[in-house]
């Protein structure tokens, strides 16, 4: 951490602390994680843009079936993440971030086609990513359809065959598990 301490001035840390849900020490810790992704590049330029693929190799994201969506949602520039994007991402996933913010980003992550609604196709994609077909665990097409149907039946209040943000938020508000699962420990 000694190296990263000198990277940020006290004002910068204060600045980040004001804009995220982290304390200064936690911000330094996040920077350390970021630096470890590619020490040479980060040492050369702190604001370097790291490639999406590199960020996806982070242990916390490596196994995540939605890693490409997460990285995309948080990247401010096509295919790359700066430290600030990364910090923002970790801040949203932190314990202190309120449920509402998490729900918004979760909605963006699960909205694969980016039409600001979770449609039947989005749901299907989600199911297939959660249980990818392997030899002993393969969801039949019928089962996927039925599952998606059940999900919409439960949550699609206005009956337009898709989940709008408010419907999604409503579901999340009824699921206390969401907060503990949508979290990355520092």
């Amino acid at each position: 951490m000694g190296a990263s301490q000198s990277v940020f001035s006290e004002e910068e840390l204060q600045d980040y602390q004001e804009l995220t849900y982290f304390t200064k020490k936690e911000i330094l810790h996040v920077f350390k994680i970021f630096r470890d992704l590619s020490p040479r590049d980060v040492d050369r330029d702190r604001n370097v843009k790291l490639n999406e693929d590199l960020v996806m190799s982070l242990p916390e994201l490596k196994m995540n079936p939605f890693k490409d969506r997460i990285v995309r949602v948080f990247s401010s520039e096509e295919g790359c993440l700066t430290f600030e994007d990364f910090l923002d991402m970790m801040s949203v996933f932190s314990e202190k971030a309120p449920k509402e913010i998490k729900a918004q980003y979760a909605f963006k992550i699960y909205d694969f086609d980016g039409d600001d609604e979770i449609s039947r196709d989005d749901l299907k994609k989600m199911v297939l990513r959660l249980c990818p077909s392997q030899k002993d665990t393969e969801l039949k097409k019928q089962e996927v359809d039925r599952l998606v149907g059940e999900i919409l039946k439960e949550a699609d209040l206005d009956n337009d065959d898709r989940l709008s943000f408010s419907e999604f938020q409503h579901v999340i508000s009824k699921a206390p598990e969401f907060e503990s699962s949508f979290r990355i420990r520092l």
Partner: protein
Amino acid sequence: MVQRSGYSIYLSPVQICPISSTALPQSPSKKRGEIRSDTNDEGGITHKSKGNHIFSLLPSKQALTSFVGITMARKQESTSRKSRSPNAVYPEAEEYGDLDPDLKELSKRGIRVKNFDDEEDVYKTLQLIKTLPCSLQQKRKFRSKLTDKPVKKVGGCAGWAYRRKLDWKKFKIGFREFQYQLELWGTAFKKIEGQQGAGVLSYFVFLRTLFKLNIAIFVLMLIFVTLPAIVNFSSNGYTVAVTGTGIGGVDVATAQTCSANYDVNISTDAASLIVDFLQGTGWMESTALFLGWYDANEYSMGTVGSHNFNYIMPLAIFLTVIVIFIISLVVMAQASVKGFRENIAKTGDAVRYTYNVKLFCSWDYSVTEELWSTIKQKSVYKDIVAELAESKFRKTRKNMTSNQKCGLYTKRFLVNFLILAMLGGAAYLIFYVQKFSTETTSSDSFVLLLIQYLPSITLGALNGLLPIIFEVLIKFEDYTTQFAMKLHLIRIVFLKLASLAVLIISMYSIITCGTRTTTCNVGIPDTCTAITCWETYVGQTFYKLVVTDFLIHVVAILAVEGPRMLLTSKCDSKLLKKIGPAVFDIPKSVLELVYSQMLCWIGLLYCPLITSMTVISFLVSFFLKYLSAMKTTGPPEKPYRASRTNSFFIGILLLAFFLSVFPVGYTMVSIRPSTGCGPFRIYSTQMSSIIDATISNLPTSLNNLVSLITSASAVLTVLVALIIVIYFCSARGSAYNNVVKMLEEQLMMESRDKQFLMARVYELTGEKPAARKKETLSTVNETKTKSKKMEAEVEPCPGPSPHNLYADGPVVSDDPVPAMPEEKDPFHAPPVYRSPSPSGSRAGTPKILVNNTDWDETPRINTSTTTHTAQPAKPLEF
């Protein structure tokens, strides 16, 4: 409800154009979350189909796609309302005329950006900016624009409060930093979560909470009970402070005789030293570990001036135990508040969203291990399939013939009977064994050790074996998996608590055997067992229980799980592969913890230093469980919902707490203390005589006050007040639930209205709704016919389905939609259509006027009538 009188819709053809959210000039970089394909063509064609643009112009959609995102600005609404125009959706343009475009955007979301009264207002706005789901650069921009103008400093009283608030905030952050450094086992937790997921982690969090609690208990005991007794041994004897003035039930003479009679055989050979250490007899008996060692003395603490400070031992012990119980209760209450809050608001709906919860909350974002992720995928799969199958199972259950039903109920009855019989047998066994081990003595020290440990071993064995039998039996009962899991857990909890309760009852019967008329409370020969010091006897029993409990944990992990892991991972045998490594069993581990904690709570009066053993035991079990989680067990396949299990743990712990407080409290107020040992030896009726003695020593005025407070009327008043508070809280909870329901309905109606209006707009502009929409809407109809339930739920107030409108609506024109200039900012653009507002007519804007009559002339007259006839079925009243 659709208001249909006296308003018009203005449509400006110039503005009808595909607005891509990417074309925001303000946005410094590409908007986040956009999919890659649409970024290369600059703002032109997006992934969104052309026809859907009106949809994307809806305020709710714009909020979602804007660079600011939807905010929680509602929080600030009370302060910002005055600065907002009556038409909040499209405030008058003049209001923002002089504003920076970024701030304008914020202002539209209901955040106050100008006319700040003082710096506190700015501060509040800055806090709100933190909650915006936009990039850091954006937030920084907002902040710098908000803070560039000088604002008035808050003065006076409010200023002082404001600055204290800032200080407090600063302190809190500092404290968090400090905590972050001190966080116990933080890195270990991260590793565990990475490997085993949040469910297992919640066990460790629970363990840590208990560990901290026990450290606190131990320190209290050490400082207030053990250290004064050890260090300051210049006793003043049985002074007035201890005996009180003129209270009954104080017998100093007998205490002195019996104390002289009570002596402990201390053998010094090595074997008996060890045996004594294990059973808490011999040399161990006369240590500070057991209550019998403490005396009913008043210790002199020194003199300041003319005043003597004395330490009254019995009072100290009595109060410390009470304080410890209160602290434990507070810690548990604090831990359960969160889960309780969630439960109050959500229990009714938890079942309604089973599938959604399964989909949206099943993935732990913190997992790092490949093994876990494959297992999790399997578990999600199994969970989904099981849930789908279960709904079928419920259906077949309904269609069962009476014969089948009869068979099933007989089977369940038999199984329950069997389980009850086993529990009864276990209870008798515990009772008998405790009696046997108290009565039997042996000259061989090893046999004696075995006999002494027999009750603990019996308890351990029963707790270990019976759950396995229960697990087999429950399969015959044919319950749904979820219910079976719960029932099994309840049975184990019952077994654990009941076995301890039976042990306590058997000890109680031994202690109170006969009338105990002999002088020194030694028991009646032939009929009862002679126990000189029953406090120490109880203490020894719990000491042995804690030791056994600890050893069982260690052995289970090191000798069972470890070899199993080695065998199943290293050997290629098919059978072993099938068995697989042990799985981290969360409920079982939690119940073990609760059991240990319960032993600590009950034992701490009789064995004040038992907490030190509990602390050690928890510490060791943390490392062992850590080892177990990281090395010897696989993650659980059953899905455990971390938050729900957490509140469940706390619930069990609370139950255990009350079960432990009861016997301790009972002995304090109604069992006669031993006359030959312990800090209460001079009180011949009950331990709580020390309180009477202390009160009798107080000055008269205080004395009266105490008797007033403890009088029946005062207690009754407090009780009634508490009941009223509880009633009030529960009423408020149910009111909130009603509001939730109403809002849910409103959400539904609003969306219907939106669909209806959108359909109208499409109809009138002659524009095609998105092709995608059509396709999905046809699937809606399929689902509708498939599920009757859905119809029953949603149909009572059917909004006009847009699908029907498109199907046979007006001829759709294929006119190319005029493209919007790229630099055009959707936020600068005048609104495309306005919400109902009678004063909304504005000159200069090209518009299509659709007045009231036009609505009725449209071909789809029947849809609007359906709306109006059907909607009153569910009136919304706010």
